[in-house]
């Protein structure tokens, strides 16, 4: 069975033609547009507020970035916020990746009574607008006594219908049924199949899911703003306190958002590597 996965992998990539210059040019253009607001945030964050009103807008950074960042850390407990967000986003990401892969495998490849109905239920839960959920959820959290704690932010996000839906759809195409049958013949239990066949194959999708989940958890602000207080904030709660005020200092705000984005960039790079290396490494282990 391991050999099967391996042959599947070894043929990858070698025989494709290399793309031409035009492709790189297009990609560069897209990358430029994608990166521009982030870069521009850093530029304005390194200048002062009047930078935004200038025509043509300034494209080169100034010398205020460090000063603005220092101000961010003294105005709100931003170090605490960064740690809190890391805890929240990591817990949610690990849980969502694991539980979604489990359920995705079952929905995609196992037969059981009520499967279609349950699957439909998963997809349907995504269709209810969630904004209003904050009132009943707040009542629930208040009853448990989780208001002002990170549990209140983590717990409701431990599972994601999006994740289950995603992994199911991915595995239903990516996981050859023959591979599972071969595994059964080899005497694998269902969990054995999951561990040896599904997990290695699921890696690229799980990495994408992990990356997207981490980003969402990191950038979520609507619910955290309601349950957390600024003494014990996540990054977005801290940002909200910074960007408020009768008089908004955009330069200061953008410096703060730049700092808040750096951890995400690091995470994106880590996961980005996983997506490429995913199948190969997994196959070696299997």
């Amino acid at each position, binding site marked *: 069975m391991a050999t099967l996965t391996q042959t599947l992998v070894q043929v990858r990539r070698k025989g494709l033609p290399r793309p031409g210059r035009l492709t790189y040019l297009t990609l560069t253009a897209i990358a430029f547009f994608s990166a521009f607001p982030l870069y521009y945030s850093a530029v304005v964050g390194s200048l002062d507020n009047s930078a935004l009103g200038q025509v043509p807008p300034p494209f080169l950074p100034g010398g205020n970035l460090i000063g603005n960042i220092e101000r961010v850390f003294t105005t709100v407990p931003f170090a605490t916020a960064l740690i809190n967000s890391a805890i929240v986003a990591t817990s949610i990401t690990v849980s969502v990746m694991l539980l979604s892969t489990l359920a995705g495998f079952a929905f995609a490849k196992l037969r059981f009574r009520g499967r279609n109905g349950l699957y439909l239920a998963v997809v349907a839960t995504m269709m209810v607008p969630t904004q209003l959920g904050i009132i009943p959820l707040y009542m629930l959290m*208040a009853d448990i006594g989780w208001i002002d704690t990170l549990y209140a932010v983590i717990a409701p996000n431990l599972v994601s219908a999006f994740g289950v839906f995603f992994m199911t759809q991915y595995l239903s195409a990516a996981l050859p049924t023959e591979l599972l049958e071969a595994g059964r013949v080899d005497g694998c239990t269902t969990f054995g199949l999951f561990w040896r066949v599904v997990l290695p194959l699921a890696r690229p999708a799980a990495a994408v899911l992990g990356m997207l989940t981490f980003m969402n958890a990191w950038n979520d602000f609507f619910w955290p*703003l309601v349950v957390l207080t600024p*003494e014990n904030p996540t990054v977005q709660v801290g940002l909200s306190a910074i960007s408020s005020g009768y008089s908004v200092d955009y330069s200061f705000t953008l410096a703060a958002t730049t700092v808040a984005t750096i951890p995400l960039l690091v995470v994106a790079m880590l996961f980005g590597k996983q997506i490429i290396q995913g199948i190969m490494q997994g196959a070696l282990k299997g």
Partner: protein
Amino acid sequence: MRGLIAPAVTALLLTSLAACGGQSGPTASKGPAEKTKIVIATFNDFGYQSLYQEYERLHPDIDVVERVAAAEEHHRRIATSLATGKGAADIEAIEEGWIGQFKAQPDKFANLLDLGAGQIKDRWPAWKWQTSISKDGKQLGLGTDVGGLAMCYRTDLFEKAGLPTDREEVSALWSTWDGYIETGRKFAAAKLPKTAFFDGPVVMYRAVLGQADVGLYNTDDTVVVETNPAVRAAFDKTIQAIDAGLSAKITAWSADWNAGFQRGSFATIACPSWMMAYIQEQAKNAAGKWDIAKIPGGTGNWGGSFLTVPKQGRNQQKAFELASWLTAPEQQAKVFRSKGNFPSTTKLYTDPVITQFKNPFFNDAPVGKIFSESVATMKAQYLGPKAGDINTAINNALGRVEQGKQSPTDAWNQALVEIKKIL
């Protein structure tokens, strides 16, 4: 193997429950003398930090903790915690724009008269005091700051248009709104490129309406938009200014608005005291170009807040004492000096702290004097529960007229329909 997952999940949940039970337990008793923790929730920048320390020195048994958030979130959180009965701070700051909404549920707040507010009533001008009285006569809040209205104008543009630039002379041009529009016509006649007389209708409409005795509501919480001529008059006066071609048609708080302060897209804007800081922030390079004159009609206010004590709190008396101390003239003067939040207590309006205060960015205009005059003699106008939404509907109507989408009559009628929906 398969059996492992559910127990694992349960265990996870249980440990987190257990871990949390420890955290949320009572943390009151620290040391021999038991301290009372008073939580105060504010938004934006009340400038209270150093005052808390001072208060804790004066009252060693009190421990003050502040929560700060952006205005929208702060008020949404109050609504949530009042509705669910949990999570409110001991003192909740409420902005003028929201006070009407929260006054509609007076039972959720302590009546400050019961806690001794009657004795400090004279600190504030009558209108400020009355703004936080509920329909059933309960005093819900103590005033913090106010946002007196004046008219900010560009001296450089006035000069180019051949208008006087001295603030006394300029104030004399527009003792009434008709005078303001008339001045605008003269300004427009000079045909300065890319420059209009005022930014957009929102602030003007609000300023005109604010000068009426009765606004959107009667004191019994009935909406009188349709029957109160003052509302229609404020609408029409603003339309008149738009029709004269004086508006730059810029949405407030947009990027164009921010840039406009710097680049001179508009020559005047009705500005509340807190907007000074905003203009300074947006238009650093325009120092000395802006000046401040009196508002047409003489009085006006936009903004300012109150400290309230929700009934959920366990230490209402102590919370009130802190709120009372924070809003006392001495403390308001300190906040004004450090943050510029304009005080709401009458006593300070004759105090040199205010009367001598000048702002160098605005050509050394005596802003303390100008702004205190606009609020000291203001009349009280009752603010009902949905004043904010009603104003939004009327602002939108003005916007539609300004953009040529509708005639004033159609826009007004549509606003009336929308207002009926709101109620």
